């Protein structure tokens, strides 16, 4: 349905825009109905930029994004409007998504004016009611209120309800959970699961691996704009192969396991872990210690539905003996 094909984003940086910074490099993946894809990465990985490009909030420097076969960068006027009727985004900070001067439900009115100008009041009210019900909000509690009178979770769910009014096909959810409290977090995640079963394709952008793991079928791990590992979620998390993925998994604080145990199990190499005896410890983030992937590195399919980035030399090796690799690390190892 939505196809991201070798997309690259280059930003001009520096005082006079003389330098270039590649935020996203050669990223390709598809989004299908009823599928949640997690884009996971740390800051600067380009995960948000990918989302912004899909929403046309940023232009594409190379490659293409096509929706039902149409390149979205060519869309204009009416066609663009109908694209937005299918593809919508919800962003990290619910408080800054609203204009504090107006009541929060103004976002609904704007949708009505733009997309349903002819709809009768009664019809609109029942549509709005259904949409609010889908995100488990009580209309009495949330309508006719200013943003500061509502909680972050309520505001976030209002934004999802706003997107649902349009009968969308694809939702870009950019870090929508991070601002929420633990006890309401899971409700929003479950809501996404619910929407997925209704046939919505969701791009779930997050830095939190456990959230991505909970909800998604497919996982894309991004680092410095490059995909380092991608595939079915249980394969990426069950059999992490790229050193960066392993490092990420080893640094996520887990509720029932300590960092050392996880590191040992994943066989994260010692130089990535901090040597406890060294007098001078390095407190750089491990992501900075790990050498970046070379630009000529390639993605290799190590098992079905699981690709990993290797340097050209390693890739040649892998191509020769794929069977060996499989034996060494059994796929879909049960964890947690």
């Amino acid at each position, binding site marked *: 349905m939505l196809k991201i094909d070798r997309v690259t984003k280059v930003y001009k940086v520096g005082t006079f825009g003389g330098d270039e910074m590649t935020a996203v490099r050669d990223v390709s993946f598809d989004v299908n109905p009823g599928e949640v894809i997690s884009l996971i990465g*740390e800051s600067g990985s380009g995960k948000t930029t990918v989302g912004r490009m899909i929403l046309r909030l940023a232009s594409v420097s190379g490659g293409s994004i096509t929706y039902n076969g149409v390149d979205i960068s060519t869309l204009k006027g009416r066609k663009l409007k109908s694209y937005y009727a299918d593809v919508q985004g919800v962003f990290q900070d619910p408080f800054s998504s609203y204009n504090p001067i107006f009541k929060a439900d103004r976002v609904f009115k704007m949708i009505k004016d733009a997309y349903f100008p002819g709809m009768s009041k009664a019809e609109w009210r029942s549509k709005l009611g259904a949409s609010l019900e889908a995100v488990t909000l009580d209309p009495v509690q949330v309508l006719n209120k200013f943003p500061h009178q509502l909680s972050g979770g309520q505001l976030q769910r209002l934004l999802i309800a706003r997107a649902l009014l349009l009968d969308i096909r694809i939702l870009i959810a950019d870090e929508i959970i991070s601002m929420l409290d*633990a006890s*309401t977090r899971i409700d929003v995640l479950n809501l996404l*699961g619910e929407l997925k079963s209704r046939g919505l394709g969701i791009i779930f952008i997050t830095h939190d691996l456990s959230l991505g*793991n909970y909800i998604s079928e497919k996982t894309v791990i991004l680092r410095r704009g490059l995909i380092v590992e991608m595939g079915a979620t249980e394969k990426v998390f069950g059999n992490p192969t790229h050193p960066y993925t392993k490092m990420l998994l080893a640094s996520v604080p887990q509720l029932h396991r300590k960092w050392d145990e996880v590191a040992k199990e994943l066989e994260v190499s010692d130089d990535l872990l901090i040597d406890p005896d060294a007098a001078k410890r390095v407190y750089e983030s491990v992501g900075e210690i790990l050498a970046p992937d070379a630009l000529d590195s390639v993605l290799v399919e190590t098992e079905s539905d699981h690709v990993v980035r290797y340097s050209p030399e390693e890739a040649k090796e892998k191509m020769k003996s794929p069977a060996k690799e499989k034996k060494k690390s059994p796929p879909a190892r049960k964890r947690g």
Partner: protein
Amino acid sequence: MSLRVENLKVYYRTLAGDVQALDGVTFGIADGEIMGLAGESGCGKSTLGNSLIYLSGRMKYVDGSVELDNKELPIADMHEMDRFRYKEVSIIPQYAMSALNPTRKIGKMAKEIIESRGVDYHSILPEFTRRLELVGLSDDVLRMFSLELSGGMKQRAVMVLSTLLNPSLLIADEITSALDVSTQKAVAEMLVEFRDRGFVKSMMVVTHDLSILHQIADTILVMYAGHLAEKAAAEVIINNPRHPYTRLLISSLPEVGVTYAKKRLTGIAGTPPALLHPPTGCRFKERCPLAFEKCVEQPPFIEVDKGHFVACWKEI
């Protein structure tokens, strides 16, 4: 016992009345203990952290006492408290990355801060550079402006600076929440290292993230709506919580390996009560599946097992 807090009440002044953000908390932190302070936003955890070092204008001291190393902390007295700030009690602010003065070089800023406490900067400089080196910063940073440092470097510089006078109690307020997972791990391990090396005697780590506390804290104190809910060793809180709120909270946290398709987690229905006119009795009773008649009275925070304190009528 390094820190002893007795029935502390701190309210926020608003036009509509007092918000009872911290309503009678009693607990202690032992020497060398890293205590995690966890809870949802608005539960009073930051209020508790801040009130031990600096009561801002909106905060009103109502009742209770705080003792640090057997000395009374005059938390309600802005000026008296100055003798303790930084030397005895120190804080790593929530936004450590923006805590540095952009118009001063790091060294000059450190000099100003340290001399304001009546300590000679030049005599402490060797120790300062040694500690910077320990966290992977060369003494070049002293001659740099804060905008020349990366986020992680700023965070480390602030951490060294806040603990330079070996405070007895360090308050770390949500210092890991804005960081990437790998930086988060480094910072969290650094806190433990500072304790192990004796730079700080005991520590209060305020965060909403229980999983990070499980990695570094010795004990965890869970707060709910201005009251204490439960305190116990970190392992006990994670694996055998006894307060219904802690139990529901922990069972609602997604983990690596738990998926929506296989095991659907549930949140806690409802929202925390407003603290302007809080309900009487147990403040969790509206959301609690175990609530019964007795819950209209406030449950005491008592020791049900060795070192395990719970405020719930069902556990008494």
